[in-house]
């Protein structure tokens, strides 16, 4: 670590006096002093009390997990620490000194770095350019770049974070993009690294590799704050874990002294079912048959390659795969949003030539196909609309909700109120803007809309992304109920646990192809390998660094 400090520090924007203080503080890391201390932090957004009297001590040189449901206040707390928000009251201590963090620039100067859930990278810049971006030390790039290259090389070696500095971000797999984000933080002399839901986009193997990196960082004296809602990761990677629930810090325990079940209970305040309770499927005739479907995206790249499968009435077919392996495009094509190059699809006995089809999403709905899209913010909902308006999105032409040219607001609101009751959507107010609902309730709005139209086939993408555990249970139960009512369900999820819990059959997608099919109780490790492109596991995980 001392070696790391002695060279090249001065060329970093982030390296100021403050930073040097921390260098001297490093020696104390083994004695367990606090890198970060939060005292009595409060933050409200209007009527929502997002953080209530939060106390938190993060030991220097440790991996500290913060777990909680979505909406528990984790992100708000980290945003306060990273200067995006100001706390209403309370103190922040960095290295024992009381500080105010007005913006992220100040946070960086104090040695706090953040790896966001959604990467903040410029796709058509190289790794090197991305690392330097915002921390250029002179008006002319060339000199700074070459110095940065040396520094980057040193960081890569020290932390085993190998990435070719001249590759463009767009050519890197997500696992490596994340590595660039970590390098960015280290380049700015981060001593405390906050990772916000870092594994959402990674394969299990990539996630394991990330945890190894975190371990190295820890051994080099860095402090890591890992924000997640996945219990497995907390158990696998952290030394200490703090649990947040509804804006409060309910417990901080040593990871070794706790269990997944205990943490889950702390998170939701009651014991929860991690498995879905369902009877064996009783599949009948196929309701959806897909043959040789090939989809090419706007860049001319084949994203779905010659895919064939079927979904029978009364079963849930899960598509497992790491995000970005063609599942999204497959779903969008089936839903009529995206055009296929060739292939066919048979729904309820009617064959559609997908290569020449001009059917849009409305036509597919008319064929009794429901669609819960993967991304409810981008696609499933219009956030500026009221709940009741979203409750008919896509079904607004249905005669049940209209009188000739006009919308039948009475019928629409009545239906919305019914769905709100049935799906326990809170707050129960159809006039409220959709943006004001929590993630779980937004997802329930989408789910209610699609399921209540009684589709024969339901496409479900990431049904519980960003949804709290209580709502996950509810959503899973609804999907299983629909199956038991004899409908065919095609499920896409990057959460392997979810795929395994819900699916009666699992298809594994990798690189646009279906590379395997497994039954109900598929082995997690095996699925993981298939998702990573089975034949060459090592290559998919580490070899792609070059």
């Amino acid at each position: 670590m001392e070696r790391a400090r002695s060279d090249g520090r001065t060329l970093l924007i982030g390296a100021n006096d403050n930073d040097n203080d921390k260098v001297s503080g490093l020696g104390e890391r083994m004695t367990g002093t606090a890198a970060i201390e939060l005292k009595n932090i409060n933050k409200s957004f209007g009527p929502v009390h997002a953080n209530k009297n939060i106390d938190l001590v993060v030991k220097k040189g440790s991996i500290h997990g913060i777990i909680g449901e979505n909406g528990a206040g984790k992100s708000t707390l980290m945003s306060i620490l990273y200067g995006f928000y100001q706390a209403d009251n309370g103190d922040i201590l960095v290295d024992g000194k009381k500080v105010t963090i007005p913006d992220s620039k100040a946070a960086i100067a104090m040695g706090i770095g953040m790896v966001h859930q959604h990467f903040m990278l410029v796709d058509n810049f190289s790794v090197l350019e991305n690392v330097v971006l915002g921390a250029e030390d002179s008006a002319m790039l060339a000199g700074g770049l070459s110095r940065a290259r040396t520094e980057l090389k040193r960081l890569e070696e020290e932390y085993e974070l190998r990435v070719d500095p001249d590759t463009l971000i767009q050519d890197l797999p997500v696992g490596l993009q994340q590595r660039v984000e970590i390098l960015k933080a280290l380049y700015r002399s981060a001593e405390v690294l906050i990772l916000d839901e870092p594994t959402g986009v990674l394969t299990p193997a990539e996630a394991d590799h990330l945890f190894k990196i975190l371990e190295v960082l820890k051994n080099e004296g860095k402090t890591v704050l890992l924000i997640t809602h996945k219990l497995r990761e907390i158990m696998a990677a952290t030394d200490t874990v703090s649990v947040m629930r509804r804006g409060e810090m309910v417990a901080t325990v040593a990871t070794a002294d706790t269990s997944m079940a205990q943490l889950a209970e702390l998170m939701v305040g009651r014991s929860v079912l991690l498995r879905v309770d369902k009877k064996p499927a009783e599949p009948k005739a196929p309701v959806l048959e897909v043959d040789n479907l090939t989809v090419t995206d706007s860049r001319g790249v084949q994203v779905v390659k010659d895919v064939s499968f079927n979904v029978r009435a009364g079963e849930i077919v899960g598509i497992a795969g790491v995000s970005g392996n063609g599942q999204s495009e497959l779903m969008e094509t089936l839903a009529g949003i995206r055009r296929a190059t060739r292939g066919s699809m048979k729904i309820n006995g009617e064959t559609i030539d997908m290569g020449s089809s001009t059917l849009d999403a409305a036509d597919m709905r008319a064929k009794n196909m429901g669609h819960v899209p993967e991304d409810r913010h981008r696609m499933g909902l219009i956030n500026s609309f009221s709940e009741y308006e979203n409750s008919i999105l896509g079904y607004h032409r249905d005669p049940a909700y209209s009188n000739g040219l006009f919308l039948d607001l009475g019928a629409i609101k009545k239906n919305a109120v019914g769905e709100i009751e049935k799906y326990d959507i809170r707050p129960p107010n159809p006039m409220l803007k959709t943006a004001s609902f929590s993630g779980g309730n937004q997802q329930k709005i989408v789910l209610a809309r699609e399921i209540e139209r009684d589709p024969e086939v339901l496409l479900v993408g990431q049904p519980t992304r960003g949804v709290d555990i209580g709502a996950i249970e509810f959503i899973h139960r609804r999907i299983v109920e629909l199956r038991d009512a004899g409908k065919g369900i095609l499920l896409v999820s990057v959460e392997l646990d979810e795929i395994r819990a819900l699916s009666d059959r699992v298809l594994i997608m990798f690189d646009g192809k279906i590379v395997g099919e497994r039954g109900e109780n598929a082995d997690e490790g095996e699925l993981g390998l298939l998702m990573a492109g089975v034949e060459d596991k090592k290559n998919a995980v580490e070899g792609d660094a070059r």
Partner: protein
Amino acid sequence: MTAGQLPRWVDLGLIPFLNLAAAFLVSGLVVLLIGENPLNAVYYLLLGSVGSVEGFGYTLFYATNFIFTGLAVAVAFHAGLFNIGGEGQAYIGGLGVAFACLALDQYVPWYVTLPFAVVGSAIMGAAWALIPGWLQAARGSHVVITTIMFNFIAAALMGYLLNSVMKKPGSMQLETRTFEDGGRLPFLNDIFPSAGFGFAPVNLSLFIALIACGLVWLLIWRTKLGFEIRSFGANATAAVYAGISPVRITVITMLISGGLAGMMAINEIMGSQHRLLTDFVTGYGFVGIAVALMGRAHPVGIILAAILFGMLYQGGAELSFEMPSITRDMIIVIQGLVILFAGALEYMFRPALIRMFAPSRPVSA
């Protein structure tokens, strides 16, 4: 899009008021700089625009134009389209009015001509918006660019038509013959002789404009088409997911928008000038953008903003008459400041207000 962070009265009341106040404050400084008393200027401006029934009649006449062009911009706005071509669409809309009037005015009374003029102006305005709309929908050519270009094409086309095709024989003016009574809308002074509108050109078109406001409200908030337009404007991806065709909505919205802009010509041509002439639009199309922005793309807001700009037009003319050192150009500067603050800098005070109103208040959870 970020609406909802602020209380409604702040969003719809306080922000426009602050914008206006800022505009007048800066205008006042300009007036002060040229050595005049700003308060006097305000006095004459108000006196001229609302101080007499006749003056108010002029204000309403200008407001009628602004309502049409403001609605045109607003409808496109709901679909996320920025129609800057109101100027050209209104100009071409004049052709529709002129065709109807020139064809019918000698044979039938005005109320028979009127429906043809309304439909004609709307069709011509819509036609002028069709090509930019279609180019945007099918080819991705941005409507901001194409509608601006179409303003120039409209000017050139009208110049040619008035010069070579439609000109009154034997005249040096670029204008058609004057319409007979069958091509003239009644002035409000004819309808309400005792109200005292005098020579103010405000005419029956005002009511057509108000009806258009009602219809636009119905369209946007009560019809399936309006739902699709708003869906597409708020989140185009979600609209496609909902089976709404972007091409269809873009073209239809631009047609409606262009049609509304075209109808402005009813007020000018059939209501006041009684002949088709060059350059009768003179900026109303552009000011419509500011009207729509200030009126929050809502018909009620547009009526209020249109009256405000009507006051500036009329009061400004009065002001330059009463205070000769404040020239016509100065009035344009003041109008420009209002447009600047109400339009371009619409959100200038927003962040500060959000800090004032939205921040965490201690609330019982």
